[in-house]
């Protein structure tokens, strides 16, 4: 077989993680992106910088702080204990929380750009036609930002699939729980199993290439459409 059982297991785990992170970030990232696109608040700059931090921060730094926060002595750890939940580190949901932080800019920034490119005018038009702000958001802004949502979702999904440092810090290397594809490749290389490492790496390489190809094929079409409008 092309992939071993543990390889398939780590790939399946990676896909589940990427879907969960993308879904959560669609809900979390959309209001943040909307606020950043529309606000004139003096907090826009600091919040924008916080959102963008994972782009420049070494994953080990982010992973370290998240580990402290989610650990038994950390604020998140306290919270999970209060609700009778187990600690998040070294669990699947710990990975999800860490990945949500790490992939936040990949969701927020394309959405923010999409919302900014819409501008105020369509929303003003909707208001003169009797639409409340919330109504205009759902019936005008969201549909017009659809290309941004697609880009943001693909980027977030792909970025989560490719994570290594943060997941290793938070999830460790527990088969079926936190051993994602990138960690599995690392394990194969450590064990000098280059053949299996090749197979896994080829799958991720093909996936990444297809994602970028899809984006490059699809984006010019949507841009042309937008320009015609």
């Amino acid at each position, binding site marked *: 077989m092309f992939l071993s059982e543990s390889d398939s297991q780590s790939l399946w785990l990676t896909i589940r993680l990427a879907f969960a992170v993308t879904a959560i970030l669609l809900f979390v990232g959309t209001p943040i992106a909307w606020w950043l696109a529309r606000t004139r608040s003096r907090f826009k700059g600091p919040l924008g910088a916080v959102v963008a931090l994972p782009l420049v921060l070494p994953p080990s730094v982010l992973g370290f702080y998240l580990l402290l926060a989610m650990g038994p002595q950390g604020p998140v750890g306290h919270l999970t204990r209060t609700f009778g939940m187990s600690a998040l580190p070294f669990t699947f949901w710990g990975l999800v929380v860490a990945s949500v932080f790490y992939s936040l800019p990949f969701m927020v920034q394309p959405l923010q750009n999409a919302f900014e490119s819409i501008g105020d*005018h*369509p929303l*003003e*038009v*909707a*208001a*003169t*036609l*009797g*639409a*409340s702000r919330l*109504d205009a958001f759902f*019936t*005008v802004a969201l*549909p*017009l930002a*659809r290309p941004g949502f697609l880009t943001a979702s693909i980027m977030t999904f792909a970025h989560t699939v490719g994570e290594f440092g943060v997941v290793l810090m938070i999830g460790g290397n527990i088969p079926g729980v936190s051993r994602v594809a990138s960690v599995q490749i690392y394990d194969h290389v450590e064990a000098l199993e280059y053949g299996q490492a090749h197979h896994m790496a080829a799958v991720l390489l093909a996936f990444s290439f297809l994602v970028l190809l899809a984006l490059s094929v699809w984006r010019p079409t949507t841009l042309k*459409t937008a320009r*015609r*409008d």
Partner: protein
Amino acid sequence: MELSLAVEKRFGTFTLAADVTVRGEQVGIFGVSGSGKSTLVSMLAGLVDPDCGEIVLNGECLFSTQRRINVRPEKRRIAMVFQQHSLFSHLNVMDNLLYGFKRCRPEHRRIDVDELIRVLNLAQFLDRDMRHLSGGEKQRVALGRALLANPRLLLMDEPLSALDDSLRFQIIPYLKSVSEQFHIPYLFISHSLVEMRLMTDTVLAFAHGRMVEQTSSEQLARNRMDTSPVGYINLLRLGLPVSVADLYAYPWGDSQLLISAASDRPESMVELSSKDIILFKQHPEAISARNLLRCNVRSLFTSGRKVGIELDCAGNTLIAEVVQDAVNELGITPGTTVYAAVKASAFRMLPG
């Protein structure tokens, strides 16, 4: 409609200040670019908040700094047609048309959707994507969408300025007849004197952020004759022409005009500038101009350094412009008979 405005808005060094009460169903706001007219209508729609003042429409206060009232745009029932059609590109024609209608309370729905679609001649486009409509079709959809929101006031912010002449004169009858038919008063914003005369009765003229004149659209055109590069534009409704040699003879009331342009429409609208009319005290012996009209001077008016002469040509009205010296030389006074000469090529056929 009765609209009272007493507002002030400052943008850097520019201040818009308006203090006016206007009554009428077809009101114009006239002014050059930068005179503050678009800001004024944005304040009416609730899209821009005045720094101070009050806006009252038909007795209801929409904005007042003193009384701390600021009715949200979606609650004002004031719809807008914008310079660019501003249609929602993710919706087709029908969904665009119904956007405001669906959000309008049932008791406010006076306009029948099918009837409006028929009047605006949109039935064949309903399933179409916005990208597949011409400029004129898009503007008709935008008008229909605004009207179907059943507003108590329709604001039209230079809705024709993005269109070429041909489309502009196709749209004007729709704009006017639809609002008349459905009894929706409007404020029409434009910097075109011709559009003002075709669309409005009362006009508020703005310059440098201040209202400088409240008058009729006809009077405004006469007052601006001197400053307008095309003078006063006479708008003439003519009947179906017949070919006469190289020209076309158009019925004009009890008279006729010889014009170089052909038309196959039963009724044509033509423009004639006041600058293109030459007056003679007596019948000239020989003249190249193909139209020589015997007219009585009805009245005279001044516009800057020019004198406008209102002529009665066999029951039809024409405005010619001359300088004061010419008035003195020809002895033109009300009741005087003069001859007006107009070249056949001076008339401009309006597309429609």
